[in-house]
C-alpha cells in the first residue's frame, strides 16, 4: 500500500443535490461561441477491435515522399479512466447520461467547493506509468492550468505541470505484416494526471450553446510521446498499442468513439538530412486509428507538397481538424485555429491538494500485480512458434488472449487452438456480434474438442458441428458426442460392411468406375459417409473402398 500520506487520499462518496438547485437555467448557457472548438463528431460504428488501415494509394505516395523528406510525428493521448467516481468528487460518470445529471457542487465549481483526490486515479496512473516503462516520481503534485472556457467550471483545470507522475518511458509496437512488419520502440515523454472538462452542445442554428458538465472532473491520463513516429501507420499502431495497454490494465475502456481515448497528433516535415524540426501542425478530431493514419498521411503530403513548391513558409503553427468526407478526395485537414504565440496557462501548484507521495512499497505492489502485458505476450506467443499474424491477432484483445492461454493450459495444441479461435470462433463472434466473453464455449471444451479430433474420436467435420453447438448453446464435447452418438467409426469390419452395401446398391456407378471413370471414388466415399452419418473414419473408409472397388478386377 501507499505511504501514510498517500493513505489520506480517500474516495469520497458525495451526494447529488436535487437537480433543481444545480443550475438556475437548468444548466444551460445561452450565448454564441465565436471561438471555434473541436467537437468530437460521432463517426464509425462501435468497433471493439483495433485494426489499423490506410489507403494503398497514400502509402505509395508516401514511399515516394520518403526518398527526400522525412515526417516527424508526436502524439498526445488523453485516456479517460474508468474509475467508478470522478477524480475529485464522488460523482459517478456514465457516458451518455442526460446532460448535467452526473454533477455536484465540486465538479460544478460552486463557491466554496474543494477537490479531494480519488486514490484510484493514482493507482491507475502508476499502473500505466509502469506498463510504459516509465520512471515514476515518488513525489509529484497537482498544478492549476488556467484558461476561461464555459466547459471549464473553475476557470482552471487541475493537471500536473513540471512534475508529472511518470516520465521517460517507451512502448513496443509490432507493425502488422501487411504494412511491412517489424518491431518499433517509441519513446514516452511523460504521463500525467488531470481532469476532463465538460462538453458544449451547440444549437443547430448556431445562435446559442449549452454546457453539459457531466464529463467535468472525470479523471484523465495524458500520455505524451517522443516525436518518434515517421508515418501514419506507425502513429496509428502506437495509438492502438496504447489502447491495448489501457484495456489490458483495465484502467480505461479505450473507446475512441466515446472519446475515452483521444489522440492529438503533431506533424512536421523536414528534408532528409536536416536536423532541425520543421514547423509542427497539430491535428485534432481523430476518432479512429484509421483516421489517425489517414490524417497524418494527408498532412505529410500537404506539407511535402508545400516544401516542393518552395512554399514551406505556408506551413504555420496551427491546429487543424481532420474532416472525414465520404470519398477519399474529400478527406482532408482544415485549419481550426492559428496559434498566435504560446498560450500562457499561468500554471502554479494547486493549493487545495496535498502532494502526491508514493512509497516504493506501493509502487512495487502495483508492479507485482500487473497482468502480462501485450508486448510480453506477443514475444511468448512468438516463441511458441505461432506466425506473426497469429501472434498479433491473439494478443490484440486480452480476453481472446486469455481464452487462448486457458485453452492451451488445458493441453491443447498451440497451433490448432490458434486456428480454431482465429477461424470458426472469430467468424461466429463476428456474425453474432458477440465478444469472446459472451460465447458459451469454454476453453476447457475447446481443448477437449481439439483433443477429440486429434485422437480420432470424432472427425474434423463432426468437430465443426459440435463447435457451433458449443458456441451457441454450451455443453460439453463428451456430452454432445454421446447424446448424438457421434463417435467416429474406426472399426474396419463395420466400415467394410457399409462399403459393401454401397457398392452393391450402385452397380451402374461401379461399372462406370471399373470402366475407367475413377473420379467416381468420391461418389462412393460420399455415399458411405452419408450412410455412416458422417462418423466413418475417412482414412479407413477410403482404404477399404479402394480395395473393394478394385478387388474384383
Amino acid at each position, binding site marked *: 500500500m501507499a505511504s501514510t500520506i498517500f493513505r489520506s487520499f480517500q474516495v469520497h462518496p458525495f*451526494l447529488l443535490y436535487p437537480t433543481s438547485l444545480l443550475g438556475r437555467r437548468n444548466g444551460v448557457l445561452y450565448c454564441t461561441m465565436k471561438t471555434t472548438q473541436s467537437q468530437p463528431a460521432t463517426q464509425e460504428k462501435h468497433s471493439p477491435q483495433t485494426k489499423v488501415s490506410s489507403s494503398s494509394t497514400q502509402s505509395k505516395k508516401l514511399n515516394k515522399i520518403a526518398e527526400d523528406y522525412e515526417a516527424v510525428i508526436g502524439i498526445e493521448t488523453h485516456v479517460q479512466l474508468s474509475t467508478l467516481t470522478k477524480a475529485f468528487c464522488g460523482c459517478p460518470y456514465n457516458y451518455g447520461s442526460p446532460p448535467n445529471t452526473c454533477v455536484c457542487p465540486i465538479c460544478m*465549481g*460552486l463557491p*466554496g467547493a474543494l477537490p479531494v483526490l480519488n486514490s484510484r486515479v493514482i493507482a491507475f496512473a502508476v499502473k500505466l506509468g509502469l506498463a510504459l516503462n516509465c520512471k515514476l516520481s515518488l513525489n509529484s503534485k497537482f498544478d492549476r492550468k488556467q484558461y476561461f472556457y464555459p466547459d471549464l*467550471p473553475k*476557470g482552471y483545470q487541475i493537471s500536473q505541470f513540471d512534475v508529472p507522475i511518470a516520465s521517460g518511458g517507451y512502448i513496443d509496437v509490432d507493425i502488422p505484416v501487411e504494412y511491412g512488419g517489424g518491431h518499433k520502440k517509441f519513446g514516452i515523454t511523460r504521463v500525467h494526471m488531470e481532469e476532463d472538462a465538460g462538453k458544449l452542445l451547440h444549437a443547430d442554428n448556431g445562435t446559442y450553446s449549452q454546457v453539459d458538465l457531466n464529463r467535468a472532473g472525470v479523471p484523465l491520463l495524458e500520455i505524451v510521446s517522443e516525436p518518434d513516429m515517421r508515418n501514419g501507420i506507425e502513429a496509428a499502431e502506437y495509438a492502438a498499442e496504447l489502447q491495448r495497454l489501457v484495456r489490458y490494465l483495465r484502467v480505461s475502456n479505450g473507446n475512441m468513439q466515446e472519446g475515452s481515448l483521444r489522440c492529438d497528433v503533431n506533424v512536421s516535415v523536414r528534408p532528409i538530412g536536416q536536423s532541425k524540426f520543421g514547423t509542427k501542425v497539430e491535428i485534432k478530431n481523430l476518432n479512429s486509428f484509421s483516421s489517425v493514419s489517414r490524417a497524418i498521411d494527408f498532412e505529410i503530403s500537404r506539407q511535402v507538397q508545400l516544401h516542393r513548391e518552395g512554399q514551406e513558409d505556408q506551413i504555420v503553427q496551427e491546429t487543424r481538424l481532420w474532416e472525414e468526407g465520404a470519398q477519399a478526395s474529400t478527406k482532408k485537414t482544415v485549419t481550426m485555429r492559428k496559434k498566435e504565440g504560446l498560450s500562457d496557462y*499561468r500554471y*502554479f501548484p494547486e493549493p487545495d*491538494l496535498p502532494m502526491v507521495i508514493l512509497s516504493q512499497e506501493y509502487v512495487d505492489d502495483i508492479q507485482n500485480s500487473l497482468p502480462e502485458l501485450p508486448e510480453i505476450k506477443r514475444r511468448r506467443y512468438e516463441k511458441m512458434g505461432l506466425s506473426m499474424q497469429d501472434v498479433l491477432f491473439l494478443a490484440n484483445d486480452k480476453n481472446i488472449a486469455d481464452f487462448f492461454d486457458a485453452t492451451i493450459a488445458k493441453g491443447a495444441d498451440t497451433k490448432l487452438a490458434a486456428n480454431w479461435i482465429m477461424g470458426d470462433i472469430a467468424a461466429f463472434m463476428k456474425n453474432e456480434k458477440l465478444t469472446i466473453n459472451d460465447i458459451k464455449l469454454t476453453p476447457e471444451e475447446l481443448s477437449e474438442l481439439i483433443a477429440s479430433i486429434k485422437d480420432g474420436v470424432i472427425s474434423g467435420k463432426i468437430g465443426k458441428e459440435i463447435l457451433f453447438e458449443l458456441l451457441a448453446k454450451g455443453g460439453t464435447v463428451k456430452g454432445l458426442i454421446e447424446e448424438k452418438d457421434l463417435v467416429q467409426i474406426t472399426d474396419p469390419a463395420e466400415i467394410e460392411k457399409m462399403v459393401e452395401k454401397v457398392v452393391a446398391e450402385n452397380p451402374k456407378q461401379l461399372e462406370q468406375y471399373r470402366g475407367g471413370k475413377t473420379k467416381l471414388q468420391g461418389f462412393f466415399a460420399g455415399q458411405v459417409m452419408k450412410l455412416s452419418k458422417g462418423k466413418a473414419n475417412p482414412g479407413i473408409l477410403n482404404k477399404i473402398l479402394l480395395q473393394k472397388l478394385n478387388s474384383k478386377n
Partner: protein
Amino acid sequence: MLSALQTPRSLSRFPLLHSPKPFLFHSSSTCRFSSRPLPYYASLTDQSTPTSTSPPQSQIVNTRHALLSGRVTATELAESYLNRLRLTEPHLKSFLHVSDSVLREAQEVDRKIAGNEAVGPFAGVLVGVKDNLCTADMPSTGGSRILEGYRPPFDATAVKRVKDLGGIVIGKTNMDEFGMGSTTEDSAFQVTSNPWDVSRVPGGSSGGSAAAVSAKQCMVSLGSDTGGSVRQPASFCGVVGLKPTYGRVSRFGLMAYASSLDVVGCFGSSVADAGILLHAIAGQDRFDATTSKQDVPNFIPHFAPVSSLESKPLKGLRIGLIRETLEDGVDTGVVSAIRAAALHFEELGCSVNEVSLPSFSLGLPAYYILASSESSSNLSRYDGVRYGNQVFADELNSLYGDSRAEGFGSEVKMRILMGTYALSAGYYDAYYKRAQQVRTIIRNSFKEALNQNDILISPAAPSPAYKIGEKKNDPLAMYAGDIMTVNVNLAGLPALVLPCGFVEGGTAGLPIGLQMIGAAFNEGELLRVGHIFEQTLEDCRFVPPIIADNVPC
C-alpha cells in the same frame, strides 16, 4: 472490481459528513463556570453596572447553564439579541442578512428542553457567520455583487458543525469583498461601523463578525483569516479573535480567497468562547484534503475560573516579544499597551524576552504576491456562466468581460490583475516563486523563535481603529496595516488576539489587541495562556459605548 473500494453515492445530503462529537461540557466543568455571576444575566439585566471589572465569561457555557436550569428560555434569549440587533444595526450595519428562522429555531430548543430531550452544547447559542461561508438556507455573497442573491446548496463544514451542535445562525455578516480588504469598506453592499466609535472602521475583512460580537448582536461568530482578517478586526472591536493553525478547520464551503492561507476563525467576547467555538468546528474533514488528522483536544480544562489559580499561574512560560513589531510605524499607544501586556505576563510568572524575526518585513510583499496570485485563480470561477451575476451578451468574451466588470469591485479587480501578472510567463520566477522562497524563510524563522519561546507576542495591528474613509484611497497604507498578521498566515501558525488595553479615541477610548502566536496545532496553549491573561486583566471591560449606554433588553 472497483465497487469494493469506492463507497456508493448516497442520496441524502452529506450523510457521513461528521461523526457526532463527544459532548463538550461535563457537569463538573459547568459547575466551575457557574461559580461566578452569569455573564448573560450581566449583559441582559445588569446593565446598570457596565463599568464592572469582572472578567468576561463564556456566553456559550452560561447560556447552556441558564437554559437547562430553566432560568431563561432560548426564545427569550433570542428575542433579546434580536431586539438589540434591531436597535444597533442601523448604526453598525454588521449584517448582510438576518435569518428569519431564529425564533423558530429557539422555540424548537425550548420545546426539546421542556420535553427533556437532549440538546447539543450550542443549543440556543446565537452565532454570526461571515458571508463568505456557505449557508444553505441563507444567501451567501462573500460581500460581492457578483454573487448577489446567490444561495448555495450546502452548508460550509464549519457552519454545519455548529448547527449540528445546536447553534442558531442569526445571520450573515458583512465583509470586504471575498475577504480583500481591512476595513469592510470594500464590501459591495455596505460599510460596517465600529461599535466603539461609529465613525471608525471595524477592521476587516471579517469586520461584520467582529462588530456583531462586540455589540452583542450575537454571542460568537465565525470569520475567516487569510492575512489577519479575524485578528485585526478583533483588535479594532475589542473582542477575542482566534486564527487556528492552517488545516485545523475545514475550508469546505469557505469561498476561497487564497487557498494556502485561508482559515476559518472564531470570534467571542471571551477566550473561552473562542476556544469552545474552535473545538466545535475543528478537525479533519474529508471534504477538505488540506485538513489535518491531528486530534482536537478538549480545551475546557484550560478555562478554569481565576479563583482556582495560584498566584503565578504562568510560572516558567517563555514569552517572546517580537522586536520588529514595536518599531517605526507603530502607534505609540499601541506600543505602550503591548509593553503593559508584557509586564502583566511577567506578573503572572512568565519570562518575557525580546526576540528578533529579521525576515518579518518580508512578509508583507510576499503575502500580497501569493494571496493575489491564488485569488486570481480562485476567482476565475465567477464567470457568469453557471451562477451569480450574469450580464447578457451575444458573444462569449463579452459575457465574461461584462459579468466580471460589473460583478467585481475595484479592490478585487486590482488583486486579480496583480495576481495574474505575478503568475504570467516570464514573471513567475521573479514574483510567485520568490515569494514562496520568502515564505519558507519566514516559516523557518518562526520555528526557530518558537523553539526559544513558548509563545510570541506582538500587537495585532499597528494602530487602533481608524476613521472610515481614512485609508480608502491609499491601498498601500491599508496593506501596511496587515504587517502584524500576514507573517502568521504565511507560516500557517495559530494566533489568538485578545483586547489588552485602550488608547484615546471615540467617546470611551479605543481597544488595542494583543496577538499571541503559538506553535502549529497548539491552540490549546494559546487558549490556556490567553484565558489566564484575560481573567487577570484588571480594570478593563471591553463593552463598547453603543451598548453600554443603552441596552434596553
